[in-house]
C-alpha cells in the first residue's frame, strides 16, 4: 500500500525487490522535525545518490539507514526502514550486526590513529570474522586491493594511517568498511574534503564497488551524482521531492523544485 502511494507521488517505476526501503520515515531532533514522511527504495548493487541543498536532511536520512542516529541524544524516529524486508528498528535487531552489514564512510576521512593494517583489520577483529593471522592478512589485503589502495601502501602497512594523504585516508576508510564484508555501504559526501584527483579516484572506486555492494552516496556535487549513480533522490526541506533513474532526474525532472536545484536556481 505504502509502496503504491509513494510511486504515485514521485511517479517513478516501482522498484522490484529493493535492498533497503524507507517508509513514512519521520525524524525529530528534540522538537525539530528533520525528516518528513520519507519514502525511498534502494536498489541492490546500484549506486543511489542523495542530492539536495544543505540542511535538507540527507545526512540525517543516511544515518537512519544504519541507526547511527541512535548515538545522538534526543532523537526520535518513527516509520520503517527495512533491509532485505526486515525492519532494522525492530527490537530483535542487534545494532552491532546491523552495522556490520551496512558500512559507513564519512565526510571527513577519519582513520583511527593506528597503523594502516590495524585500521583495516579493526572491523574483522571485533566481529570475530577470522580465526588466524593469515586469514586476517588476507582480508586486509583484499580490502585494500578493492579500495584501490594496496599498491600505494603495501610497503608501509605498519605505518600510522594519519600519515596518508587525504584521498588515501578516505580510500582507507572505504577499505576499512569493505573489510567487514557489508552488503550496503553508506557514504556521506565522501569527496567533499578531497582534491579533484583524489575525488576522481574515489569515484572510480565507487563505480567498481557497485558490482559487489549496494551503495548510497550523499553528494552536493550534481556532476558527481550524474557520474557515479544510477538512481538519484532529491531531498528538499526534509522531504523526498523526487526520485528516479539518474538520467531521467537530470535530463527530465518532473518537479519544479528539482529542476530549479539542478539548473542551479536555488540551493
Amino acid at each position: 500500500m505504502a509502496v503504491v502511494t509513494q510511486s504515485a507521488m514521485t511517479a517513478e517505476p516501482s522498484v522490484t525487490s529493493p535492498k533497503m526501503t524507507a517508509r513514512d520515515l519521520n525524524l525529530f531532533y528534540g522538537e525539530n522535525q528533520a525528516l518528513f514522511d520519507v519514502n525511498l527504495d534502494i536498489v541492490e548493487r546500484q549506486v543511489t545518490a542523495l542530492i539536495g541543498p544543505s540542511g535538507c536532511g540527507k545526512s540525517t536520512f543516511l544515518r537512519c539507514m544504519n541507526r547511527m542516529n541512535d548515538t545522538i541524544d534526543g532523537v526520535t524516529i518513527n516509520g520503517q526502514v527495512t533491509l532485505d524486508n526486515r525492519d532494522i528498528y525492530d527490537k530483535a535487531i542487534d545494532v552491532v550486526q546491523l552495522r556490520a552489514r551496512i558500512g559507513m564512510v564519512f565526510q571527513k576521512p577519519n582513520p583511527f590513529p593506528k597503523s594502516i593494517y590495524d585500521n583495516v583489520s579493526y572491523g574483522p577483529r571485533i566481529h570475530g570474522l577470522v580465526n588466524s593471522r593469515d586469514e586476517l592478512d588476507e582480508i586486509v589485503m583484499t580490502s585494500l586491493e578493492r579500495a584501490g589502495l594496496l599498491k600505494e601502501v603495501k610497503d608501509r602497512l605498519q605505518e600510522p594511517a594519519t600519515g596518508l594523504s587525504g584521498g588515501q585516508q578516505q580510500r582507507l576508510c572505504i577499505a576499512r568498511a569493505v573489510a567487514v564484508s557489508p552488503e550496503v555501504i553508506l557514504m556521506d559526501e565522501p569527496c567533499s574534503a578531497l582534491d579533484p584527483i583524489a575525488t576522481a579516484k574515489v569515484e572510480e572506486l565507487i563505480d567498481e564497488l557497485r558490482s559487489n555492494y549496494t551503495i548510497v552516496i550523499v553528494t552536493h556535487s550534481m556532476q558527481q551524482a550524474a557520474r557515479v549513480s544510477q538512481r538519484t533522490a532529491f531531498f528538499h526541506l526534509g522531504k523526498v521531492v523526487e526520485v528516479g533513474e539518474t538520467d531521467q532526474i537530470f535530463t527530465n525532472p518532473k518537479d519544479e523544485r528539482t529542476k530549479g536545484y539542478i539548473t542551479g536556481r536555488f540551493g
Partner: protein
Amino acid sequence: MSLTFLLLAIAALCALSFYFGRQRAIALSGGRYSNLHSLPAHYGTYTAMWCGLPAILLLLVWHMFQGTIIQGMIISDLPPEILNDSGKLSLALNSIFLLAADNGEHLSVSPEVIDAGKRLASLQIIANVALVVVMISVALVGLAFSYRKISRDMRARNNVERISRYVMIACSGIAILSTVGIVFSLLFEALHFFTKINPLDFLFGLEWSPQTAIRADQVASEGAFGAIPLFVGTLLITLIAMCVAVPVGLFSAIYMGEYASPKFRAFAKPALEILAGVPTVVYGFFAALTVAPFLRDNGAVLGLDVSSESALAAGLVMGVMIIPFVSSLSDDVMSQVPQSLRDGSYGLGATKSETIRNVIFPAALPGIVGAVLLAVSRAIGETMIVVMAAGLAANMTVNPLQAVTTVTVQIVTLLVGDQEFDSAKTLSAFALGLALFLITLGLNVFALKFVQKYREKYD
C-alpha cells in the same frame, strides 16, 4: 596604614585619569568616534596607565632602597667605638630600631643610641611623607603628560596593547624569578650539606638516622644520611596511592565522559572534584583515625601484623585524594578525541566498550599517561597524610603493613623545632628537597612531553 591610603589614592587618581582621558577623546572626536584612531575607552586606559604605573614602579623601587639608605645615614652618625665592632654594631642597630618603633623603653643603652633611635623615627616619618608627595606628583605628572598627548590620531589602542604586554612580561618574570630563586636557595644549602656528607653516601646509603650531637659534650651517634630508605618509603606509598587512583580515576572518567547522562554528569563531576578541594590535613585525620585502625583491626582478624601507622593506610587515603586529578585530566583528554573517530568505530559495528577500548583509550593514552605522571608527582610531594598516617620510622621495607617514612615527612621533621642551621642534620633537609624537586621536575617535564605529543595528533 599610610601605604593602604596611598594605594587607594593612586587608584582613585587612575579612575579620574580614565574619565578625563575618555572625555577628552570624546571631545576631540566631535561626536563621531570613528574620527578617532582608537575607541574612547582606549584613551582613558592610556591615561590611567600613565598615571598609575610609573607611580607604582616608583613605590617598589622606593621600598627597595629606603631601608638601606636610612640605615646608612644612621650608622654614619654612630660613634666609632660602636662602628668598629660588628657585634656591638648589630646590637646597637637592633636597639635603635626597637626605639624607633616605640618598643625600646626598657632598654638600657647609651645616649648616642637613644638619639639615633629618635633620629631614625623622624627619618622614617620624613621618608613616608616624601613618598606620598613624590608618588602623587608622579601620578599627576603622568596624568598631565598623557592627557596632553591625546589627539585624534594618537594610537591609544596600540599603546595600551604595548603597555599591557610589558605588565604581563613583568608578571611572568616575577613567577620565573621566584622559581629560580627557590632552586638556587635549595641548591646552595644542598651543596653546603654535601661538603659535610659525601653525596654518594647520601644517594646510596641504606640507613637514615639524622640524629647528631647538638653540643660537643653530648654522646650521640655520628648520624647516618643514607636517603634510600626514604625514597623506598616514598615510592611504596606512591605506588599504593596510584594503585587506588589510576583505576578508580580512569574508570570514573570513562563513565563520566562516555556513559553518564548529561544530568548525572552535571552532578557527579563537581562532586568528584570536591575531593580535590578537601585540605590534606583532613585526609590525614581520616587516614590516621579511621583507615589505619580499620586496617589494624582487620589485619588482626586475618592474623596479619599491621602496625598502627602503616604505608598502606597513608597510600590508600592518598590514592583517594588523587582520584580527581587522574579522572578530570583523563576526562579532558578523552573528550578531546574527535567525535569522528567514535563515529568511525560505531559505523563499523563496534559497541561502546569496544570503541572505548580500541579507539578512544589508545588515542588518549599519551594524555592519560601525562595525567598519571602529574598525579605521581603530586603523590611524591604530598606530606600531610604521610606525617599523620605513615609514621616517622625510616624503615627500609617494602611491606605496606609497616610504618615507613617519606622524603617530605623527613624534611618536615628535620626542620621543625630549634635547630642549628649549619648542622648536617638540618642541611640534609635541603639535599632531600633538592632531590625531590629534581624528581618531580623530571616527571613533570616527561608528562608535559607526553601531553604535547598527544596534541599533535589531531591537528
